[in-house]
Every structure is written in C-alpha cells, then in structure tokens.
C-alpha cells in the first residue's frame, strides 16, 4: 500500500514527527489557543495513524514495510518496521490516543496549568508509536525512555501535591529499573557480535541458559511497565496522579506497549520457547489477576481502583500469553493461536473500556472535584450521560455478555479448557489452577465494579459537591460514547476483531484461528463447532428482547396498580446520606474472606460505653504485602548503604587523589597477577 509515493511506515514516522512538532508548537502559541490546537492536532494525527495501521493490518498479506533512517547507532541506523503485530498494537495505541485527544479537547480546558501537560502529551503519543515501530534495539530503547520520561512529566503535572511527587519518584525509579532490564536483555540478544537490529537477533539462536536469562529480564523490564505483581507498585500511584486523559492513556495504552515489548521479544526474537517459560508467565499472570482485583476492591479512590483493575487485566493478558507459550512449546500451534488471540483481543478490549472508565472518572472528578467514592453518590441523576457510558464500561470490564470483555475472557477460558491436551504434567496441574484464579478474578471484578458504580453513581449524594454536580462537556461525552459503542461492537461482532488479529497471531505462533466471518450467523468458533461457539449478536438480541418483553409486561400489567406511599425506611426515620452503604461496607464480606490473609485486614469498632455521647469509631487497617515484604526492605537497605557512602562526599582533596591513585595501582596489580 503506498499513498502519495510513501510506504506506510514512512507515513507513520511522518505522523510521529508531526506529533513532536505539536509538542514544540505548544510552547510557542498562546495559552488559550494551545489547548484546542494541541489536542485537535493530536486527534487528527492519531486518526491518520489509526487509518494507516488499520489499512496495513486489513490489507496485509505479509508485506512488511520498513524504513532505515540515518540516526542512532552508526552501523545500525534507526530501523523501523510495520508488520502485522506492530499494526495491531498501533491500532490500539492510536485509537486510545485519538479518543483521549477528543476527550481532552473538552477536559483539558479545566487544566489549571496547561503548560505542564501540553508539551509532553504529543511527545508521549509519538514515543509510544515509535516503540512499536522500532526494528532495532537502540531505537526501541530510546523511544521507550522518551515514553517513560514524557509520561513521568505528565504524572508530575500536578506536582504541588506531595502524593503526586512521591508517585512520580517511585515511577521514575521503577521505569529506570525496567529500562535497565530491557537494555541488558537486548544486550544478551545481540550477542557478542553486537547485532542490534531485530533481524540479526531473530537470526541468532541463543543457548538455553541465555534465553532463560533474557526471558527473566524481559519479564522484569516489560512486566514492571505493564504492572505485573510484584512489580506493579508504581502503577496505582502514578496512573491516578496524571490528568485523567493521560491516566486513560497510561492505563489503557502504555501498559499495552509494555505487553507489545514482551510479545515482540519473547515470541518473535527469542526463538522457540521451553515448556517451563509458560509456568513462570502463568504463575505471574494468575497472581497478578487475583491480587490486582483484590487491591482494587479495597480502594475508595475511584482512579486508583481503576488503576488496580488495570493490574488485574494485565494479568489476564499475561495468562493468555503464557498459555500461548505453553502450547507453542508443545507444537500445538492451533491452540497457541487461540490463546494468543485471546490475549491480543483482551489487549484491544482493555484499551477500550479502561480508557472509557478513566474518562468517566475524569468527568466525575471535573464535575465534583472528588475522587473519593465515599464522597460521591447519586450522580446518575445529575450526570446521566456520563453514568450511561460509565455503566457500559463497567459491564464490559466485568466480562458480561454481550460486551467485548466477555468475548476475550471467554476465548481465554476456551484456551484453558484445551490444557488437558498438554504433555507436561506440571502444566496439566498448573493451567486449571490458573483457570480457577481467572474465574475468581472475573467474579471479583464484577463485585468491584458493582461496588464502584453503585457507590459513585447510585444512592444519594454523600457530599455537597456531589449534590451540585453538572453533566460534563460534549467533547468528553463524545469520546466516552465513541468508546462505549466500540465496546458494544467488538462484543457483538468479535469475529471481525479475531479475523483482523489473524495475521499478527499467524506471525507469532505459525497458525491462526479459523476464519470467523465465514461461520454462519456471526458466531465465533474457537476450535470446532462441536466443541463450543459463542454468538454475541444472538445474546444481544435475546437480552434486548427479554428486557423489552419484561418492561412491556411490567408496564402493561403492573403500572396500573401504582400507588404513592412513603418508602419503607427500614426503621430509620431520619434518612441521612451517611446511612447508605459505603464503599468500605460493600467490600467488607470480601475483605473478611480474602483480605484478612492477603492484606492482614483488621477492622476495629470502638463503641463508647453506655451513657457516653462520644461517637462510635471504626478503624480499618490494611497492609500491602508486596510493599512491606519486598520494597520496604530494599528501600531500607539502599538508604543504609547511601548513608554509609555519604561520608565519601566530605573527604579532603588529597584523600580523593589517593583514592584514584590506589584504585589505579590496585587495577594494575590485578592485571599483573591475573595475566
């Protein structure tokens, strides 16, 4: 496909150049003009990028498009390639970015300090595009770092709050750690010959020990960006700290770029997998899903809850990828195709509904100034359209049919059901266990989003600001409804998405799922009609028909019997909003069952003695197991060593010179003895 004499990859590089240009432009133009100009420009450029990537994906029959720019390492150049996998992820990135830009045209107007956001936003988008386009380790890492740093700058946009500064600091530390791991992984992949282009890495076969090391490094590097437990600690701090459209991008899109890095290296560059790899990935994925959603259930901050739910969804994606690795190692490429399709489908779906939910949270925050669920409530009457869009997002992420979350999680379960055909006994035990974790997580997700929606949108307002909330602007609503529609479409017509993913999956595992659009009645069939099939359209029709029928029946038969009477007050004649269910009380049963062990949750009620007029006190204590067992000791050790080394800063000049001298003599002695 060539347009105006350019290959698709050149056009996409042009798009990123325009984005960097917008970044520069935002500094020079006036304050009032900058916001619509930058976001409008980003919207158009991302739509163009989306069209190019989608065109390449749908029209692609193996025709990769490459470009080499005379930048970067002199003997490698900056190589870029657009293949099917890259175009899948470019669709995800540019769709999310276009929606976020559309949303931000309205939302960005309320930004108190737009100059802290505008220059970094287009750079962030461009860097994510470049990471996916990169075809050599150097360009990849440079783009990856630009992505990390620009998103860090966006996290620090509201730097006057101490929490945000702490989030930014932890993010920066974790991002550097991840980049270091990826750097080492690429170094090992390049081998002693220093073949830093991806082509050279593909051609080179690594010995098993080296592959294992590369896999571990990639899990650490890409996993820390994606938010795998226990590397997730920065994510729920940093994602909510950014402005909401950036939160949506970080949660919905940037984690997918990390998934891309994992897929690109492990499936594409690293050569044939060993069976035990999948054990590692499946374990991490399973733990991540359940812990992520348990964390989410404990949160009362709306955006932080969404960020933890991102952790959970990244776990689901990694379960799919782990299954894909397991099947690929056993040469069951048809089953691997199913598992990887489920993972990539979930990548796409999660980018849709997580962006949608963050937009909703941003709209709520803009309207009420609150992120704490305990101070929201009753918004469905005050922001009906936001509430509708948010509801669609909640239903989709809870994996309820006929929306898209169900389709991809159903595919993941279908892949899990194929596990008895695996040869390795460890996997035979492991995969059903992971399936159980996935099922548990799916149920907990539904509980978490019922809680979120119920507390934030239903009931009565718990604060004055929630009571006076007004509907958000039209741009934001347009973005939300766009994503909600896409969620519904992808849920009703999953076959379209699966077929579009087929070339990318085929490139990764050597096979792809059967052509879904050829199935009768728009059903999707993972393996064979006799085993299982799912028809989103049928479910939608059934739900619509039964709901309409029920509504019709109720209205025809029951509404005549309307009588107005005071609502039953359950014995509390004075109804205050404080007597409603709270986010904390809704989560209490789950907290009792699961979190008392995992988070050592203790709740304590102090009742005043009879006759005392003091209020009763309720105190909830939660411990973060990952932070306390892993990160706090590391932070302590680093602090201790830094304190000891601090004395080196206050030595005399001669002692410094002597240190240099002694180091030199020591090295020479080593040389003299060693050689």
């Amino acid at each position: 496909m060539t347009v105006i004499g350019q290959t698709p990859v050149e056009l996409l590089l042009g798009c990123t150049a325009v984005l960097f240009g917008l970044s520069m432009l935002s500094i020079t133009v006036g304050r009032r003009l900058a916001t619509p100009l930058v976001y409008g420009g980003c919207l158009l450029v991302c739509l163009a990028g989306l069209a190019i990537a989608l065109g390449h994906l749908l029209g692609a029959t193996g025709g990769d498009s490459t470009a080499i720019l005379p930048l970067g390492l002199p003997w490698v150049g900056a190589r870029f390639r657009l293949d099917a996998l890259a175009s899948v992820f470019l669709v995800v990135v540019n769709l999310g970015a276009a929606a976020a830009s559309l949303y931000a045209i309205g939302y960005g107007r309320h930004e108190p300090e737009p100059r802290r956001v505008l220059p970094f936003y287009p750079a962030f988008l461009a860097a994510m595009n470049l990471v996916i386009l990169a075809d050599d380790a150097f360009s990849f890492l440079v783009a990856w770092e630009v992505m990390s740093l620009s998103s860090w700058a966006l996290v620090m946009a509201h730097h006057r709050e101490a929490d945000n500064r702490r989030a930014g600091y932890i993010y920066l530390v974790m991002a550097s750690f991840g980049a270091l791991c990826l750097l080492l992984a690429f170094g090992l992949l390049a081998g002693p010959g220093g073949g830093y282009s991806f082509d050279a890495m593909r051609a080179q076969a690594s010995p098993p020990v080296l592959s294992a090391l590369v896999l571990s490094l990639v899990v650490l590097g890409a996993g820390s960006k994606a938010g795998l437990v226990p590397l997730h600690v920065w994510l729920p701090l940093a994602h909510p700290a950014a402005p909401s459209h950036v939160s949506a991008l970080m949660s919905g899109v940037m984690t997918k770029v990390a998934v891309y890095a994992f897929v690109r290296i492990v499936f594409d560059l690293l050569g044939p997998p060993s069976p035990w790899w999948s054990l590692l990935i499946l374990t991490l994925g399973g733990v991540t899903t359940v812990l992520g959603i348990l964390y989410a259930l404990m949160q009362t901050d709306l955006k932080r809850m969404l960020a933890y739910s991102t952790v959970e969804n990244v776990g689901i994606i990694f379960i799919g990828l782990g299954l894909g690795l397991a099947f690929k190692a056993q040469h069951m490429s048809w089953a691997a195709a199913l598992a990887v399709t489920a993972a990539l489908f979930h990548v796409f779906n999660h980018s849709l509904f997580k962006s949608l939910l963050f937009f909703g949270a941003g709209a709520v925050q803009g309207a009420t100034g609150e992120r704490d669920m305990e101070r929201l409530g009753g918004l469905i009457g005050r922001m009906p359209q936001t509430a509708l869009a948010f509801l669609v997002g909640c239903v989709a992420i809870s994996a309820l049919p006929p929306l898209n979350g169900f389709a991809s999680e159903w595919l993941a379960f279908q892949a899990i059901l194929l596990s008895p055909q695996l040869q390795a006994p460890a996997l035979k035990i492991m995969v059903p266990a992971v399936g159980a974790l996935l099922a548990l997580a799916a149920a907990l997700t539904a509980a978490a989003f019922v809680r979120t929606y119920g507390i934030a949108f239903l009931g009565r307002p718990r604060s004055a600001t929630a009571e006076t909330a007004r509907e958000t602007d039209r741009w934001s609503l347009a973005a939300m409804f766009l994503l909600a529609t896409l969620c519904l479409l992808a849920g009703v017509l999953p076959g379209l998405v699966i077929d579009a993913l087929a070339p990318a999956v085929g490139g990764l595992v050597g096979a792809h799922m059967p052509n879904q659009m050829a199935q009768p009645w728009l059903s999707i069939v993972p393996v064979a009609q006799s085993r299982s099939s799912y028809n989103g359209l049928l479910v939608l029709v059934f739900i619509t028909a039964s709901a309409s029928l029920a509504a019709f029946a109720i209205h025809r038969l029951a509404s005549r019997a309307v009588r107005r009477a005071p609502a039953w007050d359950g014995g509390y004649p004075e109804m205050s909003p404080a007597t409603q269910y709270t986010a904390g009380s809704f989560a209490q049963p789950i907290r009792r069952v699961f979190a008392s062990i995992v988070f050592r949750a203790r709740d304590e009620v102090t009742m005043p003695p009879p006759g005392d007029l003091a209020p009763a006190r309720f105190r909830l204590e939660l411990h973060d197991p990952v932070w306390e067992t892993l990160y706090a000791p590391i932070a302590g050790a680093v602090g201790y060593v830094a304190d000891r080394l601090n004395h080196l800063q206050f030595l005399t000049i001669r002692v410094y010179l002597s240190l240099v001298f002694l180091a030199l003599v020591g090295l020479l002695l080593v040389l003299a003895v060693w050689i």
Partner: protein
Amino acid sequence: MTGLSFDVAHLLAGGLVLASFMLLYQDRLSALVNMFALHAVVLSLSVAWQALIQHAPHLYVTAAIALVFKAMIIPTALHRIIKRLGIHREIENVVGVGPTMLAGIGLVALAMVVMLRVAPGGDRLAGEDLAFALSVVLLGLLIMVTRRNAVSLVIGFMSLENGLVLAATGAKGMPLVVEISVAFSVLIAFIVIGVFLFRIRERFDTVDVSALDRFREARK
C-alpha cells in the same frame, strides 16, 4: 644502527624516570620547578630522538612544543608565581622522603611487571618503553598524592602528562593533532590552576590545600 637507536631511546626514557624520582625527592618549591624544567628537557630530547629514528618530522614539532612550553614558559611562570606568593622557602612533606622513594620504586616495578606481561609476544624493547612511560605516569600521580602545596600538585600533574606524551611518541603513528590538543589542554589546565592559586591565596592567605579542607570542614 637499530640497536644503538633503541639504546639511546631507552637511555632517554630511563632518564625521564630518573627525573621523576628527582621530582619526587625535591621538597623545596624552587628546586622542584627547576627539576620540572629538566624533566621537560629530557622529554623533548626523547621525543626528538623518536622523531629522528622514526623519520617522523611532525614529532619535532611535539619536541619543540615540549621544550618551549614545558621547559621554559611554564617553569618561568611558576617561578614568578612562587616569588609573588613568597613561598619559595616553603618546605612540605606529608610523607617522609624515604617511604615515598620506596613507594616510587615499587610503582616502577609494578609498571615493569604489568607491561612485560601484557605484551609478552611483542617487541621487548617497545614493551620496556611503555613500562617507562607508565612509571612516569604513576610517579606523577604519587607526587600529586604526597604533596600538600597546590604548586607541587600542578607539577605532579604536568609530569604525569609528560609520561603520556612519552608513551604516545614511543608508539608509531600518533597524529600530531592529538599531541597538540593534549599540549593545549595542559596549558589550559595550567592557566586555570594558576588562576585558582591566586584565588586560593587571596581568600586563605596560603596555597596549602589543607586550608581548603578546613574550609569544607572535612569529616574524617
């Protein structure tokens, strides 16, 4: 002819090491500066000899640079500084002369062992040349470590640089650009350090660098 030319080259390189030992031994500033001038003269002789036997005319330029800058201009300037600061009588010894000389001998031995082991199969004479150069570098560092006066630090640094030039000219084919840039960097370092000397003097009434340490409240 080759035997004789290498012998002379060796003699001159060994002379440079000997001059370094003399620098190490001197603890009076004026004498130290004179010794440095001698050091530079030996260096320029050595470089000129290399130019002769390697048929590399550009090395004459290097020798001339060494002679003019390091043997004349810099010592003269240092003498003037010492006179203006009135520190020509100052005696400074952090570590006693005996231990310093012993350490110096140890360093030369270390340089020999390292160099001869690194290039066992190569030219034995070239290896010894490099060993001499490394000794001069190490002795220059030792001077910097064992002295307290800022002027002697400068001299230690410059004798170290002389060792680098010796190593570079001993190896064939080093371009003139590199030498010129090295020479200039040394000149600039000299100017900067000279300026600093006066600034230190202005502020602390001494060029003893331990005054700086007191100012920084060094924590031991």
